[in-house]
């Protein structure tokens, strides 16, 4: 039973991290119609920026996380505005552009920081003991921050004019533009929010997991998995699917070990994609 609770807690904590990544990914797809292959790159970049702020500038960790969010959001904004915007309606071209950016980011980080993993430790250590159950404090903090960020994103998207504008563009761009919404202004902003979320996740999670060039690849794969499961472009679906993926991953690694859990998830997603491409929530968000 203890093991069960422990696995569930790990699953929820993983789920919150995946949700943050998947929300950004699905936001970009839903609003711009772009599959962002550089999402893992922004995650890595977030981690490295936070690391540099702590290690070289001596900033306190929370401030370093904020700098990482700002830096990744700024890069996302610039990339969308100057490069992606020109070809935003061409699925294949935008996919190639984000892939190119990912290769540039990961090689750039490799060149600057080298291939080895960084010694980047979470400032809070230790664990809470609740009877026989053991919960690392750092995971609790990350969970709290992730849930706060998800709540903030929800508020922005559903309770502000900016969010209404973004969702209108996702629903029907032509009608939204006829109503006076300006994609040229909102697209870079949406992209920046999404990459900022990836940067935030990177800055929060890499001190716990690891920080080396290449940590972006599995992040991209997990984001794909989650977003497909939830239905491309669907925000509620992505959040729900993220917790499903996190919990399945946690339980399979505790009870089966190895890569069986991942294999099952991938096959599940493959079947879902083929038979129900709209995902768990079952709503066609964008034709692709």
């Amino acid at each position: 039973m203890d093991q069960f609770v422990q696995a569930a807690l790990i699953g929820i904590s993983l789920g919150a991290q995946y949700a943050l990544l998947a929300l950004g990914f699905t936001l970009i797809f839903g609003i711009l119609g772009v599959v962002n292959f550089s999402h893992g790159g922004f995650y890595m970049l977030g981690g490295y920026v936070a690391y540099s702020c702590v290690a070289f500038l001596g900033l306190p960790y929370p401030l370093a996380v904020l700098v990482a969010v700002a830096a990744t959001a700024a890069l996302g904004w610039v990339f969308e505005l100057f490069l992606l915007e020109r070809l935003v309606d061409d699925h294949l071209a935008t996919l190639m552009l984000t892939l190119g950016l990912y290769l540039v980011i990961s090689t750039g980080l490799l060149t600057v920081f080298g291939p080895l993993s960084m010694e980047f430790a979470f400032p809070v250590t230790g664990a809470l003991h609740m009877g026989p159950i053991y919960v690392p404090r750092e995971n609790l903090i990350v969970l709290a921050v992730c849930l706060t960020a998800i709540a903030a994103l929800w508020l922005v998207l559903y309770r502000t004019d900016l969010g209404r504008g973004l969702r209108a563009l996702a629903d029907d761009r032509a009608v939204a533009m006829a109503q006076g919404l300006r994609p040229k202004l909102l697209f870079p902003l949406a992209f920046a929010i999404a990459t900022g979320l990836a940067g935030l996740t990177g800055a929060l999670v890499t001190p716990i997991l690891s920080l080396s060039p290449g940590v972006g690849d599995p992040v991209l794969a997990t984001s794909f998995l989650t977003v497909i499961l939830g239905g491309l472009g669907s925000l509620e679906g992505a959040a729900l699917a993220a917790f499903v993926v996190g919990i399945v991953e946690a339980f399979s690694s505790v009870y089966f070990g190895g890569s069986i859990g991942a294999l099952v998830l991938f096959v599940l997603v493959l079947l879902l994609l083929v038979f129900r491409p709209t995902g768990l929530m079952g709503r066609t968000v964008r034709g692709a």
Partner: protein
Amino acid sequence: MRIKLLGWTELVALLLLSSGFVVPVFTRSVLAYSVLNQAFVGVIAAESVWIMLRMNLLSFATPAFMAIGGYTVAIAGQHNITDAFLMTAAAFLVPALVAVPLGALVLRLRGTYFVLVTFVLSQIMQLLIFETPGLTGGSNGISGVAAVTLFGAELGTNRLVLEYACGLAMVATLITGVLTRYFHQHFAGIEENEILAESLGLAVWRYKALGFVVAAGVAGLAGYSLVNMLLTAHPSSFDSSTAVDFIAYTIVGGRVSILGPVLGTGALVFATNLFGTHGQYAQGLYGVLILVVVLAARGGIAGSMAALWRRVS
């Protein structure tokens, strides 16, 4: 409608590839052999990507089908089956057969969804290799694969391996060339506007399925060539991230003709080797080149050369 089986672009591509038979006459440099070998494997894999791109479908599944082709040959080698013709046929047919039911499933998807499903496919293949150690050797792979034999003679020396890789690349180019020439208009119709093509009476699914199956077979040949070069079938050779390299070869080379994957692979493999032992940095170059091609030179190397030629003549 007169259909040509091969055009001048295919002939130029074959001529370029035949360098594999010429170079050993002049040099015995291990480096030159190694670079050429890598290029021949890359050309075949890039041609597999290119076939799907002809229908505006970007495939990340190349490493998965390469793995099927490569492991087929390695497993056959364990049973002392090494005949060149038999192995070439098997490396093509086994992945192609696997692609038939898979194609029936995944070709219902268009554009973005197709890209994602092929990405998932290559991840699944990696995990499958690790989970079936009895068949594939799991994380250890299958080492000491027997050298291929042609009419009973073993093709074991560096030069013969290179020439064999060259031969495989030419076979793959012939298959790719004939397919894309014969169905040129069908593929072009699908690339231009799939819905329109379908409404004009083109059985789109038939040609997409055919393309997918042949692309899988061609990728299988690439896997065979790779295993034959390394004499090892290892999961890391078929890592899903290598799909990005083959896509880069094709896009940078240009998608207008078969010269694209050939020139793109040649240029990028050569450039990668300029990095020497720092090959990991080559991916940054690929990234920059992809950005440049997509933003500024949509035709890639082959397209830009063609445009230049038109301007000069």
